[in-house]
């Protein structure tokens, strides 16, 4: 894959490290077991567009957000975290 880092431009995927789904927030301490378990262990695993975090480890070192189609790896958008929506 080629991922377009919003800070460095298009780079090979080997420069990046995957960081899981974007937009998840840890529930508060008193949210209860179900909410906590959902957050920790249940993911959408969608077929199609997926918003996710990557860090440009062998580049600028900055976390970015990527929208990638899980079916064919077509990347529709990349940008700084929180700004691709």
């Amino acid at each position, binding site marked *: *894959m*080629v991922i377009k880092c919003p800070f460095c431009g298009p780079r*090979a995927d080997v420069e990046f*490290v995957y*960081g899981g789904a974007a937009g998840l*927030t*840890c*529930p*508060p*301490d008193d*949210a209860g*077991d179900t909410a*906590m*378990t959902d*957050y*920790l262990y249940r993911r959408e695993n969608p077929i199609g567009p997926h918003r996710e*975090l990557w*860090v440009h*480890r062998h580049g600028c*070192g*900055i*976390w970015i957000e990527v929208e990638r189609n899980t079916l*064919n*790896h077509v*990347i529709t958008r990349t940008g*700084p*975290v*929180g700004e691709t929506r």
Partner: protein
Amino acid sequence: MRRPTKEDVGALIDPHTTLDFTFDGKQMTGFQGDTVASALLANGIDLVARSFKYHRPRGIVSAASEEPSALMTVRIDGLEEPNTRATQALLQDGMAVQSQNRWPSLEVDVFGVLNSASAFLPSGFYYKTFMAPSRAWPFYEWVIRHIAGLGKVPAEPPTGRYERTFAHCDVLVAGGGAAGLVAALSAGRAGARVIIAEEQSHLGLGLLPETGTIDGMKPWDWVGKVVAELTSMPNVRVLRATTVVGLYDHNMVTLAERLPALNTAEAQPRQRLWKLRPREIVLAIGSIERPVLFENNDRPGVMLASAIEAYADRFNVLAGRRAVVATSHDGGSLTALRLKKHGIDIAAVVDSRNAISADVAAALKAQDIRCVTGADVVAATGRRHVNGVRVRLRSGDVDMDIDCDLVALAGGWSPNVHLFAHTRASLGYDADLGAFVPGEAPLHVHSAGACHGVFGLADAIRDGLTAGHNAIAACGLTPADVVMPDITGGHEFQPRPPVGLPQGLNQNRVFVDLQNDVTVADIHLATRENYGAVEHLKRYTTLGMGTDQGKLGNLNGLAVLADIRGVEVGDLGTTTYRPPYTPITFASVIGGDKGEQNHPTRRNAAHRLHAEANAHWVNAGLWKRPQFYPQAGESDLEAVNREVLSVRACAGIVDVSTLGKIDVQGPDAIELLERVYMNGFRTLPVGKGRYGVMLRDDGMIFDDGVTMRIGETHFIMSTTTGQIQQVVEHLTRMLATECRNLDVFVTNVTESWFSCALAGPDARRVLKGVTEGIDLSPTALPFMGCAEGVVAGLPARLFRISFSGELSYEINVPSDCGTALWKRLLAHGADLGLKVYGVESMGVMRVEKGYFVVGREADGRVTPDDLGLGRMASKKKSYIGSAALNLPALKEPGRRQLVGLVPVAPGIKVPRGATIVEKGVHEGGAPPIGHVTSQVFSPCLGHGVALALVAGGRARMGEHLTAASPLEGGDVVVEVVDPVFIDPKGERLNE
């Protein structure tokens, strides 16, 4: 046999340069430019292999990478490569070529007896037959593997260089035939950066047999002109003997290049694997001729018609004297006419169709070539080599025998869709061609010519120009002025639908896939046993597996299957095409990444000094760290014991530069620390440090270390050696997501500092003599205090922290001052008994103190409470992991907890990695209740000590358990004790 040299034939050989080689030990000669296959044919060798399963005699079938049979072990200059396709390997002087899968020899192969038993050895035979007893399977497998198979892996690693290389270009043209050449030409003239890769060692070989003219030139001369222009362009790179082997996501393409001079020692690599990222890809990889199915269609002497012609055209080699052409389209007859011109007698053209084109019929007649229409070749005769064919008219059961020593298979042409299919784009079935063609093209991929289903010279060239034009436009370049050349003569290409198999064949002798010995009978069997879906068929019969991946056999196999199931081939679909298109060597995948180049080696500032002190090295991540410093005559354990006792009695220094150091600065720095550490940092005064533990989201321990507050908004955080990258990214991730409003900068400063720990009861006395501007008294610089000043004449940060349990100072100086600090400390401390110690000795002391280590005790499955740190976790704040700590599973009483273990009997070690079970009950398999995480010999206590995680361990103090370790030689009874073995009150480190 080789014809006497004539000027206009043998385009690729130089008959003036003779090369010596051996085949199975027999001395032979060939010419410069020969392939191994053409040289063998020139020497009259027809039997070149024994088949995979039945050990049937096999000959050369093709002239390219689709070859299923002629796989050889080729040895030159100490390099041995098995399963080399003789049709692709260039002959070299001194080459030793050996046939495979035969014993004792090709001619007399004892396993050939399997052939007569082949009716009893259908697909799945081994698995059905050798079911019982199941424990005998390893023996059966050993026997079967000795009988079946291809070449053997050489015992020695390959000599010479293999290389990986990376490149970019605007347009990659895969295939250097007519379509590929014009696509590359138009892209090159438009100024695009072009790479054109051709699998054969020459471009445009497919145009050799063409009879018409291009722009008034012979087609082969036109090829020469185009190649000369391409070669002269600085923006075009021509790669010969280079196969495009894989298309991957986002235009990643891999190419396997075979360098011509295989034996040029070190000067250039033998093979090169290209990883290429073109903007646009033009696929022009042509088509593959389909074999015709009949009994014994695998006999040496049965070859693709196009291959017979190729050997004559390119190498001046005639594969036989008298040929029968088996075909079902006009192309077969046209090939027959050209073969006759080359000097091969044509015994007959056998065409399954009832009628052929009038002009072709007339041409055959003019050459006095017999043409049998409405008939099929139903069998080849001859045991070791074809000596004739049996022909049966479709109108009746009239058989006739025709003598010949060569059978030319011309079953039609299949577009080569392998690379297109790597993109996962769909294929369509073209009923006229009887083959699959590319469907809708994915972005950036342009097919052209025969692989696009566009046949015939003029049409292919037109298609190549279109593809080139589209690729250039997609690159945003202005297409250059390349006009369609003027083409005369040649024949119109006529597609032909496949014709069903003739009736009444012995299906056990009709080979669909030569490399895997898959017959028509096997496909029938698979269907009967409900493996009639294409993917099932492939796995059950191995049809289409092996080094050729069914390039010749797949479509015929699908046609047979469709016939059995009464459906169209197009409705069956195909199996998934996966890279690589042709096999590539592991050596080329590895390239230079081996031995010392496998990964970088990191050496810290004082590396040379450690080496001079006879350090024994240990790898920590990519770092080399001194493990201990053995003296003459000392065992490893003696060296470690000496170092530990010396530190505990006097003082020692250890290099801790590799520990991660992160500079955290900014008005909100404290807020970040509060969020990532489970314990509080808000009350930490400037000039003091605090030990902190980080958790993951799920409540498990992630990392630990001391963070010093060296300014109101300035902190130095330390991390485990192997985790620095992860911790930095953990922090930056927080700052990019939930803590994005915080004003903090996080910088990895590990490599900017050289750090060593000076530890031992005499540490202060040693330090005092070399320190300026820092008050070292316990009140001014207490445990967990920090100060800046000058140590040994160097600017230094002094942290009073300890990993040994002794009074200890971590001295940090800029990296380039590291060697000076190390030398000056040792010089100054020599009289006071200061010695160096390594990380092994440091590890012994930390186990004696019961300190946990990330990766050992904290293995990603332990909570703070498991390690006895439950009370350290703040109750006043929310931090990463705090919510998860409330989950019931993390509070279960039976969780494994950190304890110490000592052997009950004197003088025994606790076995490494032992499983803990209840004492005495493990015979017969008691459930494990824990495991040893670290074990050392404690020189201070004089016996072995261990740290372990044991279920409910803290409530088991004084209990006797068994540490079971079959690997380390048995069981040891241990007593559960407190994990802090030395100085439990911490008096020494607070001194």
